[in-house]
């Protein structure tokens, strides 16, 4: 392998993570739970239809509902697992007293941070990719296009990378893994629950005011909320509801893309800058 492009930390972390049977057992349980849900859903939908209504099959609406539920399950997985996978990436090295030796090697800070981030994400990516065959069952019943599935995959990748970058950043800045994890989960909560609340709150302020004009803040808070963006990607019609509420017609996914890409760049930049001490800094 060309040493110029290889990332020793990434290779080592992947080796360590997949050497442990725990990783595979985790994926196995996830896929088993997902399969149980999907086949349970299919069974219920095909047997509970009222007699004489042409039941015994899954219509496109039901197929779409299944896809929507699966997407939200995947989103929950991304939101809850990513902080746990990334928030200990640097701080645990510090706690295990291996970080100093890593920092005295000639690897760049960028290489180390990227290796840590990508290796943590790799596990989650494997989980998502391995669930694709179950996910793809909805194609049998229509209602979802492959392009929509690809879009969702890209969305998950971006969201995972963003939350993962925040996790690695906190892991670099905070010495204790437990505290770094709390900070990352706190950020995740702010991006989901708090943005949702702020969006509704600022929109309601607009309604309550004397001039019911556009509410850019309400639109912004909604645009960076992962659940809102998933809804807009799944059914573009939901964008109209948001436009009606905020008075702004700008597509939420563009704001989401810009915001989360900026978040990735900023978090990685801070982590790279703070990983090693500045030898010129004095105290």
């Amino acid at each position: 392998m060309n040493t110029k492009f290889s990332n020793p930390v990434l290779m080592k972390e992947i080796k360590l993570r997949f050497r442990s049977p725990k990783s595979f057992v985790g994926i196995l349980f996830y896929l088993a739970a997902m399969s149980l849900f999907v086949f349970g859903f299919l069974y219920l939908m095909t047997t509970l239809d009222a007699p004489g209504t042409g039941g015994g099959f899954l219509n496109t609406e039901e197929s779409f509902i299944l896809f929507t539920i699966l997407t939200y399950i995947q989103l929950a997985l991304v939101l809850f697992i990513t902080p746990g996978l990334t928030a200990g990436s640097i701080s645990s090295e510090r706690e295990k007293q291996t970080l100093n030796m890593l920092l005295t090697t000639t690897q760049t800070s960028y290489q180390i941070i990227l290796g840590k981030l990508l290796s943590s994400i790799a596990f989650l990516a494997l989980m998502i990719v391995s669930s694709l065959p179950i996910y793809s069952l909805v194609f049998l019943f229509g209602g979802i296009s492959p392009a929509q599935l690809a879009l969702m995959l890209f969305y998950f990748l971006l969201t995972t990378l963003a939350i993962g970058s925040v996790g690695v950043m906190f892991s670099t800045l905070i010495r204790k893994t437990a505290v770094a994890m709390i900070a990352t989960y706190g950020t995740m909560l702010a991006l989901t629950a708090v943005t949702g609340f702020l969006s509704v709150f600022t929109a309601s302020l607009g309604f309550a005011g004397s001039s019911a004009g556009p509410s850019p803040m309400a639109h912004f808070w909604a645009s960076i909320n992962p659940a809102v963006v998933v809804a807009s990607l799944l059914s573009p019609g939901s964008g109209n509801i948001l436009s009606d509420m905020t008075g702004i017609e700008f597509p939420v996914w563009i704001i989401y893309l810009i915001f989360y890409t900026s978040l990735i760049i900023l978090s990685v930049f801070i982590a790279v800058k703070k990983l090693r001490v500045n030898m010129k800094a004095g105290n």
Partner: protein
Amino acid sequence: MIDIRKLSKSYGSFQALHELDLEIPEGTVFGVVGANGAGKSTTFSILATLLPPSSGDALIGGASVRDSPEEVRRKVGYMPDFFGVYDQLKTEEYLDFYAASYGIALHGRGVLIGQLLELVNLSDKHDVYVDSLSRGMKQRLCLARSLIHDPQVLILDEPASGLDPRARVEMRGIMKRLKEMDKTVLISSHILPELAEMCDEIGVLDRGRLVARNSVREIHSRLKGDRMITVKLNGPSDEAVRFFENRPFVAGIAADPQVREVRFSFSGSEEEQAELLASASAEKFGVRSFSEEETDLEDVFMAITEGGSGQ
């Protein structure tokens, strides 16, 4: 090879290093002795580019830790006093990871790792998990890791701490081999006699200041001062007492007629001591043997650091 210039480090109001000046020539094995909090680990951490100095600078092979830390990392192999290992990696994989981290090409790593494992006597453990190694073996593995990129300078912070006597002997053997490889080694230890065996020179750090720096032998002789000499006699001790009483630098004579032995303290130089003993041998009372109480390096260390930082 190592040039430390007015290096200072403070943690808030606590001054860990006070304008430390130290020059260590290429190929020297230099031992640093000091009590806890003397500034040894702080100095080593700065040299390993893990800690920025408050003022001053240190050059490793001409590269400044302040201005060119990347270059310093290429030149330095560092072994910290406390370290962890990746337990789930095998010994070979552990070294391979660090070889990759130093940008060593894949095709050359196998031979290099084999040589290093042989150097630290771990060849038979190449395929075992690091987790299963004893503490002494982990110390040796860490030493091999610090040598993986063939650094010019080795910085070893307490490499023998916490080891059992057998592991210490093994570590000492490896140090001797490093010395033969002509590496410049900066090593700290609390086990002073071991340092004396391994090092060309020793520096004593006390409260962030270098209070003594010399060869092991010179430090010994400088601090010997009054030393106790015991002379065993063939003849009666009263004659010997009379002889030694009239000699310069001799004080506190005590005789034991039953075992025919005279003890006294001597404050002269080593040459003057040799002269005295030669002339005593020519006397009628007859000298069976001489012995000088060995000054322990720990005593030397205590004597130097007792004076405080005022030196």
